[in-house]
């Protein structure tokens, strides 16, 4: 696909999503996507410095390279093997650093992309903003709720764009799902079951001779001072989706976490189960585990008339009542018509799962991670953040960290009343 075809397919999809839904709330529910739907303006590429060239950082570099308005101008990593892998993805002339502060001091950047361990997000964001740069940071925002709020406050005070990596907000299927939900296709949404189930230890191999410190650097997700484990690295995505589809924030959270299977010295839970209460009695039921992948990653958005499973890209209507035949008989008699009454059959189980195939949601031909960078590039150019993004990201991070607190304390944790205004 050439650039023109690509652009047309992207715009055509977004046009279909938004043009047909102006009256049903999608524009207000995803205002950032409206902004991102426009093709990038012509002009100099936005120069980005990428801090962290591990697996995720390298994926981001490749997505940035596909945008029409951004370029990787520098890369940085304090772990030599990762930096070498990052260099392989960028032109040889791209500057590289082992210290992010040196990269900031070197100048020549419009923004910084942070793909580092969670516990350093806040510090690196502060330093980048203080250096006069806009920031794109991977989710979750920070290791503490206080630091998440401080990142928002610092960005606003410095008049810099702060965008957090929640790519589902740009995903064509999620946008179509939102449109269908706003149009009432699945009725009143009262429960979202979200899960991220994997069957892998999450432990990365260490180089020969590596000691404890190297383990904590490479396997930072397994240690509590660096990460909240599955809550900040996985659940935060799905909590963003549930807040988004409920168009609300939780009122409280309760949960249970355990190191249930991978008893390898890790400090974070490998098995979590939580309930997030929302206004009106609505609930998100969340689970994540690392020793069974049967049910994978999914959000099941459940309404009175149907269910949406956006990761599968499908929407399901509630089964028509099985008694339709007898209701038809009533109609027939009223109409003076006599015909055979189809009986259901020998075996009827009223509570079995519905197995109807459902209908496909729309798929786009563009990549959501790329699109969020194009949106970031335009935000950097204009100096104005894409509307609504930071609100979603901040509260998703708060929700994930609140869930950790609920599991750690074994208590119901109320939604904080002292969060910063976004």
């Amino acid at each position, binding site marked *: 696909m050439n650039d023109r075809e690509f652009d047309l397919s992207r715009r055509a999809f977004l046009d279909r999503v938004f043009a047909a839904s102006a009256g049903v709330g999608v524009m207000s529910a995803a205002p950032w996507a409206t902004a991102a739907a426009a093709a990038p303006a012509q002009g100099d590429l936005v120069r980005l410095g990428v801090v962290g060239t591990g697996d995720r950082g390298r994926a981001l570099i490749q997505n940035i390279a596909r945008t029409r308005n951004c370029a990787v101008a520098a890369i940085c990593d304090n772990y030599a093997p990762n930096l070498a892998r990052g260099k392989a993805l960028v032109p040889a002339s791209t500057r590289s650093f082992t210290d992010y502060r040196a990269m900031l001091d070197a100048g020549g950047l419009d923004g910084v992309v942070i793909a580092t361990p969670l516990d350093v997000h806040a510090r690196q964001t502060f330093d980048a903003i203080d250096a006069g740069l806009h920031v794109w940071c991977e989710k979750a925002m920070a290791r503490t709720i206080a630091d998440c709020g401080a990142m928002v406050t610092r960005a606003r005070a410095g008049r810099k764009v702060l965008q957090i990596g929640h790519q589902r907000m740009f995903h064509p299927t999620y946008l179509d799902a939102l449109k269908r939900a706003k149009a009432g296709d699945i009725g009143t949404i009262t429960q979202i079951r979200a899960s991220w189930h994997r069957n892998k230890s999450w432990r990365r191999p260490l180089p020969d001779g590596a000691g404890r410190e190297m383990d904590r650097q490479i396997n930072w997700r397994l240690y509590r001072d660096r990460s909240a484990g599955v809550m900040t690295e996985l659940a935060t995505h799905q909590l963003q989706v549930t807040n988004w589809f409920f168009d609300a924030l939780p009122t409280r959270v309760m949960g249970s976490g355990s190191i249930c299977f991978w008893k390898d010295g890790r400090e974070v839970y490998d098995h979590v189960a939580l309930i997030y209460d929302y206004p009106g009695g609505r609930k998100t039921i969340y689970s994540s585990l690392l020793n069974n992948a049967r049910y994978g990653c999914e959000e099941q958005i459940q309404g009175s008339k149907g269910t949406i499973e956006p990761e599968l890209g499908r929407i399901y209507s509630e089964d028509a009542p*099985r*008694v339709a*035949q*007898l209701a038809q*008989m*009533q109609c027939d*008699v009223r109409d*003076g*018509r*006599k*015909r*055979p*009454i*189809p*009986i*259901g*059959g*020998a*075996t*009827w*189980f*009223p509570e*079995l799962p519905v197995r109807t195939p459902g209908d496909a949601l729309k798929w786009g031909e563009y990549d959501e991670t790329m699109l969020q960078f194009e949106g970031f590039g335009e935000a950097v150019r204009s100096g104005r953040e894409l509307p609504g993004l930071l609100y979603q990201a901040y509260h998703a991070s708060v929700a994930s960290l609140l869930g950790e607190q609920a599991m750690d304390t074994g208590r119901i944790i109320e939604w904080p009343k002292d969060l910063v205004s976004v």
Partner: protein
Amino acid sequence: MGTRIELHQFGAGDADALFAARRAIEAVDDALTIHRPSPATALNERLASGGSVAVDDPLLLDALSGICDVWRWTEGHFDPTVGVGEAGQWRHVHVDVAAARIEVSAPVALDFGGFGKGYALDRAILALRARGVECALLSAGESSIAALGSHPLGGKWPLSIPDPARPGAELIRLEIEDRSVSISATVGAGAAAPGRAAMVRPSDGGIVTAPATAVVVDESGAVAEAMSTALIVAPRSAARRLINLRRDCRHLFTHEGVPLVQAGAYGNQAL
């Protein structure tokens, strides 16, 4: 009973006829259920150690009396005993209706299952008749149907029974009037799920897995239920014998492509 029951009344009848029929069904459920405390569960507790037990609940006693009859009519292939000792324990049971007592010579537990569903429809039909209703169709989970009187547009009620082994195909078409229909099968929606729709052979306690559907028409819904179960679990020779006693209203389809048992008089090609 764990199933949806629908009552469709047409034409004349007292204003409270449907309510009375519903109460009749609920009364049967209250008496015969084994899924919550009930006269049936109390009876089972006392029968677990054998001996002679008084039956105080009139519905329970009436149902036990009815089971005595259908156990005999089905040559013992309908047997409501479960879970204690070997299968087919009803032979150890003696019901004295006049004395309102049941006596067992071995530990026994009862599960009224589908019989209870048909019995409930029978009681509902009685309640409707008593209130002047002459035309109604009752459905319990769509596998148990009872028709009161003739079709509201005249003639018999035409029923189309689907083929559980061939989605979209019709297994048999029936016409009934003042009759009940019971459908039992080892195939169809949910039947393959673990623990679902297990048909136990009273003769040896084994689970019937051969694909088969039985459709039985009878004056009594309870009898229809018992007979349709018996046709599924009985050996082929016994099933043929039971069908031949009333070829016009007992049908067994094996879904195996081999006509091992003669079907009824409706000329359906399945057997």
